[in-house]
């Protein structure tokens, strides 16, 4: 136990959230379950069996605490409960529930530890247990890191089974028929004679029972919902304009607000708001951190007036121009900034001593999140506390942030989570909520709705980490032999942790994510991560560290394989010893008909990156046309252990590929005079429909653990495209966005 203890007492970083290791708190406390928050909401005769199922005499509510940012997790969570509880969609409502420690994320902790997903050694297993206990103890409730499925897969099926068995027990007592003769179907308990008693009818008597805790989960072969194509519960609303988002909400007595915040993230020196104050519908101009808010009687009037304020902004706390940002990154490959040596196989320095060495430098820029629904929030503050309406991935931190500004306790903050119009990591940040709270605190009792203009959203976004890699490697007998991969990026996790007010000691697991854990048995391989000191503040961007490190690794590996004179797929297969990853590669080689003839101006590239425990491989096919590169086709294979819904799975895989390709082609945030130069989608558009290739998807279910698919399709897209372009043109792309170096059609 000596080693596990030592590690556990350290503090380490988890993507976006830093957590103290848990053993110091003791096993007893860790095992104590959190109280059921639904118990506080019950009237006599209503039943709750656990924090996820609530039944009254006329309704059934399933609590789906993970935030729905487009990935369909409300439906997924409801399906897991409904599978065991024998409910059909339409028979129940869903609710995000109230923020509560009982909804702690059981999967984020296991992913936080610095061990490869396939490492089942003692230290790795112990650390996962310790980290999970820490999350439970602290009640960290979060959506992110593709963790919703692994977090909920067991837990929610068990919640459904507990409710089912308790309802059966209630029916058994009422009718004096043994439980063993009862079954459930379609929202009701079925008696031996075929008569039914609905769950709602049983709620009052079930409420008097201690919930049954000894339940057996159903065999997958009997599933009605899981693993089969499902019609998403939100699809009707989202196809008819009737799904509401934060930006659509109206609260009685609400005023509209717009803001202008220093785009250099520093204070306001001077301003002149006289013109704005005189505009129609404007009632007040109020100070907020680093800027001003305009209060008006409509969104448009507020935004319009805010744009008429003249400001003199203070200088940025980070370098004003991009050259200085890149210079800082380039200067970070030094011992002082070594964050962690993640991998050290063989002796790359010795292997490269007396042979030809291939070196290459890769770059990845800042990139904005920019989900299509702009940041918005509604907050009302009064003597009793605060009420908040917004879409957010960290509900309990929302309570803390709001409480700190409103001057109340976190449990006096009521948070109504909302469906979000995308996130991609943006809704892990708090500016929309804290700024609205600052305004609302100055207008007690009045609900304030703040809507960011797209320009403010771009200016105040926390982009993806900027970074570079330096690789050197050598080959022997036509095979890859040695490789030293050094990666230097700013730490998005530390930047986020600072804003969350959390400690951030220990290595940032994301700087070299997707690179150090590569499943390749290269005789001499070293992967080192260097942390660039904070420049412009950054944040988690869909797939986080792997979106940059995966590009650095798989781009250069392709170069090294070419240097060896080997085939990109065959050499990866030869090097890939882990059976799960190997099957992913074999499957994509077969699907894409790798090795088959292409015309002279075509090319095909492969990349495989594991992120969030999901090995994902992509093959991209391109044509080099007279007007530029056309992406013809993409094949993608990922092993998630089990696919919950093949339709949503395909949609998320395709969307991830499009996200990865689009931003690799054309998106970056650059700073000039300390201000982001891109202010709207015209300057950072991502992929559009005319550029979208055919995308052929396959999910494998060989891996032992179930995983999420929101992020893993992103990292291999950029390197697979770069490798395909090399195959078609002979040009290596080592810097994103690629359109700085080659045209696309």
């Amino acid at each position, binding site marked *: 136990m000596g080693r596990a203890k030592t590690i556990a007492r350290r503090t380490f970083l988890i993507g976006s959230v830093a957590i103290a290791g848990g053993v110091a708190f003791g096993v007893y406390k860790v095992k104590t379950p959190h109280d059921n928050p639904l118990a506080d909401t019950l009237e006599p005769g209503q039943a709750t069996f656990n924090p996820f199922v609530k039944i009254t005499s006329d309704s059934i509510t399933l609590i789906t605490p993970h935030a729905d940012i487009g990935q369909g997790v409300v439906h997924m969570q409801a399906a897991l409960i409904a599978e065991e509880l024998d409910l059909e969609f339409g028979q129940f409502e869903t609710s995000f529930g109230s923020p509560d420690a009982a909804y702690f994320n059981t999967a984020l902790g296991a992913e936080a530890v610095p061990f490869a997903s396939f490492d089942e050694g003692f230290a790795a297993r112990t650390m996962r247990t310790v980290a999970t206990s820490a999350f439970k103890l602290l009640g960290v409730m979060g959506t992110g890191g593709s963790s919703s499925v692994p977090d909920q897969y067991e837990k929610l099926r068990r919640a459904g089974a507990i409710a089912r068995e308790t309802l059966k027990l209630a029916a058994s007592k009422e009718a004096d028929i043994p439980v063993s003769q009862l079954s459930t179907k379609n929202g009701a308990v079925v008696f031996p004679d075929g008569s039914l008693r609905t769950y709602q009818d049983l709620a009052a008597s079930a409420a008097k029972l201690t919930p049954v805790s000894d339940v057996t989960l159903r065999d997958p072969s009997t599933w009605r919902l899981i693993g089969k194509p499902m019609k998403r519960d939100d699809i009707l609303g989202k196809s008819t*304009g009737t799904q509401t988002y934060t930006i659509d909400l109206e609260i009685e007595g609400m005023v509209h607000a717009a803001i202008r915040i220093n785009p250099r993230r520093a204070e306001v020196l001077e301003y002149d708001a006289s013109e704005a104050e005189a505009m129609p519908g404007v009632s007040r101009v109020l100070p907020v951190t680093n800027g001003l808010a305009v209060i008006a009687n409509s969104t448009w009037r507020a935004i319009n007036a805010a744009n008429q304020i003249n400001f003199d902004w203070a200088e940025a706390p980070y370098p004003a121009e991009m050259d200085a940002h890149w210079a800082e990154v380039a200067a970070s490959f030094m011992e002082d900034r070594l964050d962690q040596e993640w991998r050290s196989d063989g002796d790359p320095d010795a292997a490269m001593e007396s042979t030809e060495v291939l070196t290459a430098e890769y770059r990845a820029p800042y990139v904005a999140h920019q989900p*299509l629904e702009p940041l918005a929030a509604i907050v009302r503050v009064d003597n009793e506390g605060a009420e908040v309406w917004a879409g957010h991935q960290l509900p309990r931190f929302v309570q803390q942030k709001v409480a700190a500004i409103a001057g109340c306790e976190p449990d006096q903050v009521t948070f109504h989570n909302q469906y979000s119009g995308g996130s991609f990591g943006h809704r892990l940040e708090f500016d929309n909520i804290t700024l609205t709270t600052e305004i609302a605190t100055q207008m007690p009792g009045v609900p304030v709705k703040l809507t960011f203009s797209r320009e403010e959203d771009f200016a105040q976004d926390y982009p993806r980490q900027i970074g570079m890699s330096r690789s050197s490697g050598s080959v022997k007998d036509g095979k890859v032999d040695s490789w030293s991969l050094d990666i230097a990026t700013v730490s998005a996790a530390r930047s986020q942790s600072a804003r969350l007010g959390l400690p951030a000691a220990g290595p940032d697991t994301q700087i070299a994510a997707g690179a150090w854990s590569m499943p390749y048995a290269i005789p001499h391989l070293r992967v080192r991560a260097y942390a660039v000191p904070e420049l412009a503040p950054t944040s988690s961007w869909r797939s986080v560290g792997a979106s940059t490190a995966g590009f650095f690794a798989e781009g250069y590996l392709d170069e090294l394989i070419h240097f060896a004179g080997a085939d990109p797929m065959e050499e990866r297969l030869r090097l890939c010893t882990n059976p799960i990853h190997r099957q992913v590669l074999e499957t994509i080689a077969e699907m894409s008909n790798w090795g088959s003839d292409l015309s002279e101006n075509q090319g095909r590239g492969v990349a495989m990156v594991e992120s969030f425990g999901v090995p994902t491989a992509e093959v991209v096919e391109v044509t080099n046309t007279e007007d530029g590169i056309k992406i013809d086709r993409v094949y993608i294979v990922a092993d998630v252990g089990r696919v919950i819904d093949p339709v949503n799975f395909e*949609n998320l895989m395709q969307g991830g590929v499009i*996200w990865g390709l689009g931003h690799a082609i054309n998106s970056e945030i650059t700073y000039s005079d300390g201000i982001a130069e891109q202010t709207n989608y015209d300057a950072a558009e991502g992929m559009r429909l005319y550029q*979208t290739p055919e995308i052929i998807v396959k999910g494998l279910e060989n891996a032992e653990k179930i995983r999420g698919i929101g992020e893993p399709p992103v990292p291999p897209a950029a390197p697979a495209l770069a490798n395909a372009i090399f195959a078609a043109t002979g040009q290596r792309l080592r810097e994103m966005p690629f359109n700085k170096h080659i045209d696309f059609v």
Partner: protein
Amino acid sequence: MQLTINNKIYDVDIEPDTPLLWVLRDEIGLKGTKYGCGIAQCGACTVHVDGEAQRSCQLEVGDLEGSAITTIEGVGTPEALSAVQQAWITHQVAQCGYCQSGQIMQATALLMENNAPTDEDIDDSMSGNLCRCGTYPRIRAAIHDAATKLQEG
């Protein structure tokens, strides 16, 4: 001024240079039309004006008296879906769904003009509508499907 929206007449008292988008959302309460960029780069605010797809963030309401305006609420409802909306559901297009009102309005306008669009026609018509979630392959499939259904009558 009077605006004709989804075959209903609304009396609106507002500055005539206000964009239609904000009149729909804040004055009339039709929230299905979305704000995304404000500069006609994303298409989330697409509506029909006299049968043609337009970006409502760029239209001043003062210019629209006498025009027939149709929003997502006017093409179909959850109880009475249009062929395009039905295809959107069949193909499970939406992820976050925020862009889909605009996508459906743009696709509906395309199909009113051309009931058998090729992939190229779809590229030309739909590329002004951003989908950050990347549902484009399903949008394409749903348009082809809706076209087939419309041809079958």
